[in-house]
């Protein structure tokens, strides 16, 4: 948890609309897969805020960010050149727990959720876990980082339009593997990062098959360090808290949450939030 300035070594498109930035940092820099940086993209105050970006990978003295050039912030980031400096906070947030008690890990990534799985795949495979990456996208062109994940284990690919691999979502693809008996739930752990609908579907799948799951959630962040309470989600209360839901910060208690932990309905059901004066918390 520090404010740092690194030097950009490289910043270039690696796939259509997606950039990789490599940044030099002191060799003491280390992170755990799933953690993110809060990055300043402009000197100006428009855009105003930092942007959260997962660390895709790190090696001694450098790390990589992989980002889709979508909005204005990412466009500005993509204009930075090697030699310029990058102002960032981090590593921030809770990483994926590296479970070694089960031999097989399924890393499910959708859209721009794939980058953090890269470092995770490496870390897990180093620990002797058999890694299967399940990468989904709408079409063939949206699939990210296949070649970079390949070395760490198996690769399953899903496209909504069936243009390559499984025809359907990454979650349906995984469902099919368990359903067909091709994979054993009791030996498996699921790690995921991607859009909300994907995470919800995976959460349901993981609970149904009783597979431990770890889901990385993306919420809009202002401070990134837990001070502003912008990025909250509702977490089911544990038995010790007599089951009362808790408001937790994606940037500090997350972005990785365990399957079964989150009250997804909170995104839709104002009742959890309304009349909080009345709610006995």
């Amino acid at each position, binding site marked *: 948890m520090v404010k740092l300035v690194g030097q950009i070594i490289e910043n270039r498109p690696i796939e259509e609309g997606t950039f990789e930035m490599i940044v030099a940092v002191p060799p003491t820099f280390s992170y755990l897969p799933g953690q993110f940086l809060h990055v300043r993209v402009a000197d100006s105050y428009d855009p105003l805020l930092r942007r959260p970006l997962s660390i895709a990978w790190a090696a001694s003295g450098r790390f990589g960010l992989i980002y889709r050039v979508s909005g204005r912030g990412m466009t500005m980031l993509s204009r930075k050149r090697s030699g310029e400096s990058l102002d960032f906070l981090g590593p921030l947030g809770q990483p994926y727990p590296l479970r070694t008690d089960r031999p097989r890990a399924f890393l499910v990534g959708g859209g721009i959720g794939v980058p953090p799985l890269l470092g995770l795949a490496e870390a897990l495979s180093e620990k002797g876990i058999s890694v299967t990456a399940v990468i989904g996208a709408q079409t063939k062109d949206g699939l990210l980082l296949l070649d970079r994940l390949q070395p760490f284990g198996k690769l399953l690919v899903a496209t909504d339009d069936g243009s390559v691999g499984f025809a359907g979502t990454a979650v349906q693809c995984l469902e099919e593997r368990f359903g067909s008996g091709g994979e054993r739930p009791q030996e498996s752990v699921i790690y995921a990062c991607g859009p909300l609908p994907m995470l919800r579907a995976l959460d349901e799948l993981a609970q149904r098959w009783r597979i431990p799951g770890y889901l990385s959630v993306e919420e809009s962040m202002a401070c990134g360090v837990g001070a502003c309470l912008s*990025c909250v989600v509702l977490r089911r209360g544990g038995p010790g808290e007599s089951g009362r839901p808790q408001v937790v910060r994606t940037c500090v208690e997350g972005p990785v949450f365990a399957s079964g932990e989150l009250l997804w309905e909170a995104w839709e059901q104002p009742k959890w939030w309304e009349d909080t004066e009345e709610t006995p918390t």
Partner: protein
Amino acid sequence: MQDAEGQPVGSPRLITQLGPWQLRSPILAASGCFGYGREYAAYLPLQRLGGIVTKGTSLKPRLGDLPPRMVETPAGMLNAIGLQNPGIETVIQAELPFLHRYGVPVIVNLYGTTPEEYAELAARLDGVEGVWGIELNISCPNVAAGGILFGQSPILARQVTEAAKRATHLPVMVKLSPNVTSIVEIARAVEDGGADLISLTNTFRGMAIDLHRRRPVLGNLSGGLSGPAIRPLALQLVWEVAGTVQIPVVGIGGIVSGDDAAAFLMAGASAVQVGTAQFIDPTACVRIADELEATMNREGFAQIADMVGAARQ
């Protein structure tokens, strides 16, 4: 500069008399943008701050507003946190002792739905170690009851101030809402009610629309605008209020640099609070103090007091 324990305390030239308080710096952390100090302790020396205004605190815990709670706008951001907080008891037991260790002046920002609630909160803090004063938030745009309503009526604003003053020996700062026709009228009412200081401004009510979902972005529909976008508006309000009341004024709104802080002081503020800038730069409150000293050198001011109101001559 260091204190007896070798901690940095900043330049003596930044020492600021703010009403009843002598502060090490005119730069305070604004409510809701600094939590209860824990999160930023790793990024800056808390003892260098002029003070920390805590997150808005209510009698009972509050879950706050439905997400999404934040959306970026040009040079600004809208928030609708809805005063999520663990309630006054937990704050006193679990949060304030942490801050007390740093010796940094703590001002507890309070939110109630009735004058009586404000009084109860004020009374509860009387004598709590490390608490230098309270700030009455009568200006939060993101809660259904209380909050901004008190800040939009001179009569209610005065009632809340009087209730709090009667209930505590602590200095009472009242934080005004900008969403009024005449800020001067409210400021006078609050001064008449016995306020020791006035701080302004809280956020401006605003909205952003999600075109795809065809609804306002924020769970609460509306939110409060903060950041550099509002700086000229806040400066105007400070100018008006400082020209009206006798009690000291604390300027807030979009301050991101020492020059910005200087502008508020020259407009008549005796000190300032920094909010949104913390999110962009977690060292902001200390960096801005250092920059302000550079501004003083450049523009030929020996001490903070000399800058206060310098643009009003």
